[in-house]
């Protein structure tokens, strides 16, 4: 087991190189010059040719400062070398270290993601079990249909509808439209702050969990149905156990195993989704930062976000695999 984990961690190195190479290629092959954004803002009262000369000098200055004048492979190696030491470069926009900008926003996105994941697992598993245990019943058909609809609902539509109908003084205003807390809530009590936070998180959390929730419930139902067909379940029933006990004790444990691995697929989806949801609800998390970086063509920030997202997913997948081995003793990594 330790050996396996070690091997996987060692595999991180080539994977990381591949991740950075892909990210770097995407960002540097893009047409357009990031230095363009730095010029042409000031100097309105200068003549046109003076202005363009100044602009050229400014561009040249930034090209050197950001290392864009060096050959592309050198640029990559410099960037990779700095990254290994934890230096992702400075933002093109405000010159702050990129890593700082991301780190201060990770807690927000992480909190939302954890709430979302916990919520979808807690609700999806019982629904899946119930649906499978009563296969082809009305409830089963009904929930299957509803889950299908939820699965196809675009999160940004749900979010827009919520903002228009549930957070709009013209119709119903029961939720705030944006942000994480009410302005001026600094001197509220802890409990009031907590309620306020939760109130602000209701819509974003619902919008980002719908699709994954529906997906997970369907998978849970499928997994449960698969297990119920096994011989040992027939044995359990044959020896006269109550159906409740057969399902909740004998079938449940094995049917949960494949559900754990699905976390690996849900994680990147949540990071992608956070770009849309955080932008719609103006939540200052990683997703909104990514959106702002994309609009400003802030290369170091975009690259850092992509690389960090991939690394987080990579670590998540390893944890999932380890969990897999813990819950299912049939899986051993040592000998194949």
């Amino acid at each position, binding site marked *: 087991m330790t050996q396996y984990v070690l091997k996987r961690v060692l595999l991180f190195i080539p*994977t990381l190189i591949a*991740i950075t190479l892909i990210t770097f290629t995407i960002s540097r092959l893009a047409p357009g010059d990031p230095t363009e954004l730095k010029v042409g803002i000031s100097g309105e009262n200068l003549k046109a040719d003076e202005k363009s000369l100044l602009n050229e000098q400014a561009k040249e200055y930034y090209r050197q400062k950001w290392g864009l004048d060096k050959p592309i492979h050198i640029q990559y190696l410099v960037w990779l070398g700095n990254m290994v030491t934890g230096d992702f470069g400075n933002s093109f926009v405000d010159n702050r270290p990129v890593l700082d900008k991301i780190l201060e926003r990770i807690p927000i996105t992480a909190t939302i993601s954890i709430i979302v994941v916990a919520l979808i697992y807690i609700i999806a598993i019982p629904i899946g079990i119930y649906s499978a245990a009563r296969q082809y019943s009305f409830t089963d058909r009904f929930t299957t249909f509803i889950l299908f609809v939820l699965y196809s609902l675009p999160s*940004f*539509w749900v979010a827009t509808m919520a903002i228009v109908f549930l957070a709009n003084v013209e119709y119903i205003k029961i939720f705030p439209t944006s942000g994480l807390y009410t302005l001026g809530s600094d001197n509220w009590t802890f409990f009031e702050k907590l309620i306020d936070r939760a109130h602000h998180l209701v819509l974003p959390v619902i919008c980002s969990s719908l699709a994954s929730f529906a997906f997970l419930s369907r998978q849970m139902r499928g997994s449960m149905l698969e297990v119920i067909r096994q011989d040992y379940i027939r044995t359990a029933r044959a020896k006269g156990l109550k159906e409740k006990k057969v399902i909740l004790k004998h079938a449940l444990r094995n049917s949960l195993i494949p559900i754990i691995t699905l976390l690996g697929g849900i994680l990147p*989806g949540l990071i*992608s989704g956070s*770009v849309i949801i955080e932008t*719609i609800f103006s939540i200052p998390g990683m997703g909104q930062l990514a959106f702002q970086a994309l609009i400003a063509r802030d290369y170091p920030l975009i690259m850092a976000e992509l690389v960090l997202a*991939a690394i987080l997913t990579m670590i998540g997948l390893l944890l999932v695999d380890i969990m897999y081995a813990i819950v299912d003793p049939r899986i051993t990594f040592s000998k194949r």
Partner: protein
Amino acid sequence: MTDKKISENQFIDENTVINNPSPQSIATSGSDIPRNGESRRKVDQTYWSLVKHQYRKNKLAVAALYVVLVLVLMAIFADFLANDKPIYCSYKGTSYFPVIKQYLVDLGLTKWEPELLNVDWKNLEFDTEIWPLVRYSPNGVDLFNNAAPPSWESGHYLGTDAIGRDVLAGLIHGSRVSLSVGFIAAGIAIFIGVILGALAGYYGGKIDLAIMRFVEIMQLFPAFFLIITIVALYGSSIWYIMIAIGLTSWTGNTKLVRGEILKVKNMDYVQAAVSLGLSNARIIFRHVLPNAIAPVLIAASFEIAGAILAEAGLSFLGFGVAATQVTWGSVLSEARGATSSWWLAVFPGFMIFITVVAYNLVGEGLRDALDPRLRD
């Protein structure tokens, strides 16, 4: 009859890679693979006719196929459904087909008469006239009806946006962007997926290892994030959007095709083809792939839905096609700035939703029909 035709086209459209997805007989493992053309006439026992029969049992999936058909027709005939010119009119004794004439003018084949150039067709007095369903073009600005709610009298059946563009006209014309992105992006994803999957599965060894490692690495990236990055950095053209979506969603197909090929690779008929001395390319494309393609068809349908959703998401965030082109996502995003215009939120989102549901249902129907083992 029409139903049959659609489902056949569906299959052919989605795997243009394989130049001939010849309907294999059900006895696939034998060497009696029927010649092309002949077998299609024998409707009763071919594989695809069985599939069709199975598919028809699922009423919801059949209905979804009709929705898809309506959407495709809507995209093709968008100019005849929503236009600020009449389809037919008789003006000062001469008959015109302005919508068709506009096509010819755009192609440079003809010119507008000076008196009809840049006129507001609504103000002309015709002897006879036939108008499209919606008398507005998606970019036409109705100055007197901006931010107007849906109304029968004004002719803005689904209302207008803040600058007076008709929502229904925008939705009808927006279907062109959505559907073309959906089909082409999914096509790219399938092309890459099938080629890489076939190479990995057929050759195995180092090629397999390299391709599968690449798949794993690509899957570490959050797909939608990668798509916006590519589109934001490279430019908001519809081609970049198609390519970006295609390049980020092929990994699943590769895994599927590889798995299927591993299954059929050692079957007798492949061994027979090898012993006949056929080239690897011929064996892969003529013998192995057609028998490994079913799961890809299912995935294709879901991928079209995913691509349409991704395109709408991009437009919604402002990274979509050029700002002059109205898309479902761009109309929906206007609702964020004009929360009192509820119709801007409801209708475009509903179009995206219905389209995604339809393709997902077609996918589920295909899955049930093609592979009964996968049924719940």
